[in-house]
């Protein structure tokens, strides 16, 4: 028998420890459970198989992102922001860079603007593929999972050819990008998009009208538009309720104002709608990427601004001003003027915002990430309560909580 004093302390204090009635049970699910893709703990009160109420705890992946930001240069944070939503790291990069650029009053070059838009849509495609694939796998649709993840891996390798990494790219730079496209990159992109279309067609055929899939998804995990807005939902979950709210359309940033695209919406905000909105959004992303490949202008990818962009290597080796410039940018980093800025992009999960505060030095005074996954955890009980215990799996999958972003 284990003595009481050596038992490990409980990191959470549940909102309830006793049932409202005497015939219910309280179970603990997670934080490390094979059915939840994400490290999250759910304490649920059950009446038989039905969930009466839930108390959700996150934070198991907290690694002090915001604290760590306050002791590095603005540029050195880019690998950290990659690791927030690690499924679509490029969007984190670009949002963070835009916040700092706003503070510094920098306007990026046209080529950089279109490339960032193209890569944001590519990231959204990868993110939605992952979410849909994992959600289907959790319902037993192994074939659909393998189709989607195979295409995703083509994309990862393709992004690695551009950035040097499969998942965490560190590709954004304040004032531009790390490097331009390699030769033949867009040709390969078109090949991958064709493969995507072939396999997404097969997945539509496998699951869209599949009786088992519909029974598990339709009218499960429903949330109304009113509740979704009250609980701060943005992105796919809000659009699945029928509200066509998309920052790419409503507050156009990067090159979105010049693109033709639809904002797909659902009809009742259940799991099936979230699945279908993601599937439709992927098609829209492909449509946008094809437009962007046509529109992509030539020219430099970095602004000509010595406050943030490293000088040409050749100049660093031949003239003293550029050498000092390079040294100062590496050692002290860019110094945005004192002030604050908030930049928000439509990430695959919703509004991803960076609120940055500078005191005029090379080290941020504060970097705060408005992480959609975290806010979504605040209202997730609305989608879990009242349904079956087994419905937690597809519902939680369709919320697409990304631990890195949620817990920071």
């Amino acid at each position: 028998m284990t003595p009481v004093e050596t038992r490990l302390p409980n990191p959470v204090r549940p909102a309830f420890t006793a049932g409202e009635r005497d015939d219910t049970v309280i179970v603990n699910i997670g934080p490390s459970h094979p059915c939840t893709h994400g490290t999250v703990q759910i304490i649920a009160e059950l009446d038989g198989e039905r969930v009466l109420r839930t108390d959700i705890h996150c934070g198991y992946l907290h690694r002090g992102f915001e604290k760590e930001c306050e002791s590095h240069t603005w540029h050195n944070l880019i690998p950290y922001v990659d690791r927030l939503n690690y499924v679509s790291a490029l969007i984190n990069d670009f949002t963070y860079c835009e916040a700092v650029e706003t503070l510094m009053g920098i306007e990026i070059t046209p080529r950089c603007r279109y490339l960032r838009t193209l890569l944001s849509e590519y990231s959204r495609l990868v993110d939605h593929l992952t979410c849909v694939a994992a959600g289907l796998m959790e319902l037993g649709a192994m074939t659909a999972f393998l189709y989607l993840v195979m295409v995703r891996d083509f994309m990862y390798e393709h992004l690695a050819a551009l950035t040097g990494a499969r998942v965490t790219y560190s590709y954004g730079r304040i004032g531009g990008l790390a490097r331009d496209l390699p030769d033949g990159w867009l040709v390969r992109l078109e090949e991958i998009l064709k493969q995507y279309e072939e396999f997404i067609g097969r997945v539509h055929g496998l699951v869209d009208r599949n009786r088992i899939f519909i029974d598990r998804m339709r009218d499960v995990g429903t949330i109304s538009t009113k509740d979704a807005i009250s609980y701060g939902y943005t992105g796919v979950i809000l659009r699945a309720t029928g509200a066509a709210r998309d920052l790419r359309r409503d507050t156009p940033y990067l090159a979105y104002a010049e693109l033709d695209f639809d904002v797909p919406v659902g009809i009742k905000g259940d799991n099936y709608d979230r699945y279908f909105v993601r599937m439709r959004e992927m098609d829209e992303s492909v449509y946008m990427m094809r437009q962007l490949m046509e529109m992509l202008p030539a020219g430099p990818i970095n602004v000509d601004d010595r406050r943030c962009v490293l000088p040409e290597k050749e100049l660093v080796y031949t003239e003293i001003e550029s050498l000092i410039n390079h040294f100062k940018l590496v050692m002290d980093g860019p110094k945005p003027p004192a002030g604050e800025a908030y930049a928000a992009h439509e990430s695959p999960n919703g509004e991803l915002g960076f609120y940055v505060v500078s005191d005029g030095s090379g080290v941020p005074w504060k970097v705060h990430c408005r992480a959609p996954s975290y806010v979504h955890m605040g209202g997730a009980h609305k989608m879990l309560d009242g349904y079956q215990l087994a419905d937690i799996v597809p519902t939680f999958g369709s919320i697409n909580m990304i631990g890195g972003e949620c817990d920071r």
Partner: protein
Amino acid sequence: MAAGILDRVSEALAPTAISAAIAHGILVLTLAPEALTPVVGRLQSEFGFDLFLDVTAIDWLPQTPRFEVVWHFYSTEHHVRIRIKARVAESDAVVDSLRPRYGSAGIMERECHEMYGIVFRGNDDLRPMLLYEGFVGHPLRKDYPKDREQPLVPYIK
């Protein structure tokens, strides 16, 4: 249209604010902490700021008052953002909770409370969210050292 709504809000709420200015496309209202609830009430009911995006704080140590609490709102109707700021002292780091108006306030105020020690009056559920029960201190305060360790389970020597 975006500018129009911000002008109207600015005109209507400037008398209750310490300052009102547009910075990088966002209207920034600086308020006394006690003006928060009435101002947010008008923003929500009269001007359609229905999405409560975020609340966080800035630790301005060694300035006084030490903390600045920052709220961000978005209007899904007008597609504009607004930022509200209020300074509070360390000895009285209390502001009103927005929980009665916005469901999302619950979880975001929990984070701000554990990270900075700001108390949200009216939010009765300020349990730790990203940290754990029994964590001592508020890690995003400037006087909390980055390398302080508080293992919940002792390290194995």
